[in-house]
């Protein structure tokens, strides 16, 4: 009896998590996020805060990582406080994501290659000022570290962007 209950609980938890994940993935597909500099990262990295939106209060970290890598490739971020300089996106063509869909779709899928280039520098912590309920959804800011040098090299190797030295 006890075993059956445990199993039931496990299935229910998995289903709940799965549903939450689906909703979060849906939010990510629309790439609704805001990105800002969170400080000067260690060598070869950007330290950024990503604001993601979610209907669930507990889904954010995975989505934040995905959004962060997407942001570095396609959006860049503004400079300002904390010694931050503005950074342009790694790609200059905004349509490249759909033009190179065969590369980017698997790259950003759940557990995709994007994960190699990002880590949650806040170790799962969300700062009190970085969680906000806006209407019926949550806006959650997570600080992540993106390995921009490694990411650039990978995109260059895949022929998505040109190497820094290719113009010379």
């Amino acid at each position, binding site marked *: 009896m006890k075993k059956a209950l445990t199993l039931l609980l496990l299935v229910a938890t998995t289903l709940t998590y799965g549903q939450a994940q689906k909703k979060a993935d849906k939010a990510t597909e629309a790439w609704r996020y805001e990105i800002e500099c969170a400080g000067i990262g260690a060598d070869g990295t950007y330290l950024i805060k990503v604001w993601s939106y979610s209907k669930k209060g507990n889904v954010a970290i995975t989505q934040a990582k995905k959004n962060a890598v997407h942001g570095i490739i396609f959006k860049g971020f503004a400079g300002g406080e904390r010694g931050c300089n503005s950074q342009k996106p790694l790609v200059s063509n905004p349509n490249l994501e759909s033009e190179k869909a065969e590369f980017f779709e698997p790259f950003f899928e759940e557990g995709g290659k994007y994960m190699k280039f990002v880590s949650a520098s806040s*170790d799962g912590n969300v700062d009190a000022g970085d969680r906000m309920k806006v209407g019926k959804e949550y806006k959650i800011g997570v600080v992540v570290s993106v390995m921009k040098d490694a990411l650039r090299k990978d995109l260059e190797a895949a022929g998505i962007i040109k190497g820094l030295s290719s113009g010379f």
Partner: protein
Amino acid sequence: MLVVSAANLNAQVADNVDVKYRRSSIYTLMIHEPTRPYAEVIKNSFEKGPIPEKFNDHNLGTRIIPATDAKDESANITAFLEANNVAKEVVAKWFGRSAKGGFNMDMIKQRGSYDASVLDITKAKASKRGLDMLADAGEELIKNTFILVNDFKYVSKEEVAKKASGWLNALGTIGDYAGISNASTFTTAASAGVTVAGKGYVVKTTAHLYRLDWNDEVAATFYNDFWTEDGNLSPEKVKAFNESKIFKMTYIGSDVSWADVQSSIFTSKTEEQLIEKSTVKAVDAVIVKLQKNHDEFKTKTPLFTGEPITAKIGLKEGLTNKSVFTVLEQRMKEDGKTEYVEVGTIKVDPKFPIWDNRYGASEENPTQTADRTYFKKSSGKAFFPGMLIVQKKGK
């Protein structure tokens, strides 16, 4: 539902709530009148009493203020603090002033690192400057320096009881004598009877709280006009600091607390031991009251996880099994401003040990597996990581 404000987390309405908790540094003193009964016992007990773990110990050499005949010692305290340049001495301690007059940043760095939350540490590790960033933040702690002066009043229940016509009347009299308007707090003494009340002491302390004035202007003057180091000492700057009058304190207010030390006819404790204990308890009570009445002293931190409910705070922040927290959620209003709304309360879950995150705890206690403190929900719905929890009731 409760909406809270920037100025007071117990009140209503809210923009720009300061969600960052910073450790306060405290310097405690007491009024001493040698002719009072057991004055030396009280003084010794106060002087050797520990500073609560939650605060940085900022005590200076002098901790005793001679009493005057005045009923209210406020003017005496203010005069003493000014005459002894306490504000300047407090600043000198922050900057480790040497006998020669040179300053250093060692204490500021050490306290900055100790103040850092787990979130601060993880962020700092990911940044180019690394953990040095935390040490820099130590400067922000200077403005949270407080001077607390206790004026103890010890009232023997036995003496009061003898003077009163009956022990029921005595309860009210004790309250009046001790200056406590609500004598209903003595119900435990009442139920225990005269023999119990006979050997205990009621301790009342009026605590006067001051805060060091440390702002951008004072800091700029300090660094420009007074900063000098032992290796390259500037006699002009040493002199300028010695003669400076820019360091001040602001009187914040007074809180009255008391401790009722119960004793029984079976006690083996001496009178001195009872008084010692009551002194410590009275100071504890004052600290609890300060935490309740002043937002600066309330521990605030985001929830680490919502299920189970955990947070990255522990003994360093003075948590006990009695600690209770309000859970707040930040919400954006239609006008774009944010407010914090109370969504529940939690208390420390006694089934789990409180995380020992004090300095050196990991070396002293290598078998510790906890890296967070667990809480139990008292009220509210689902809680999520990042919701703000704020200490309640001063415990």
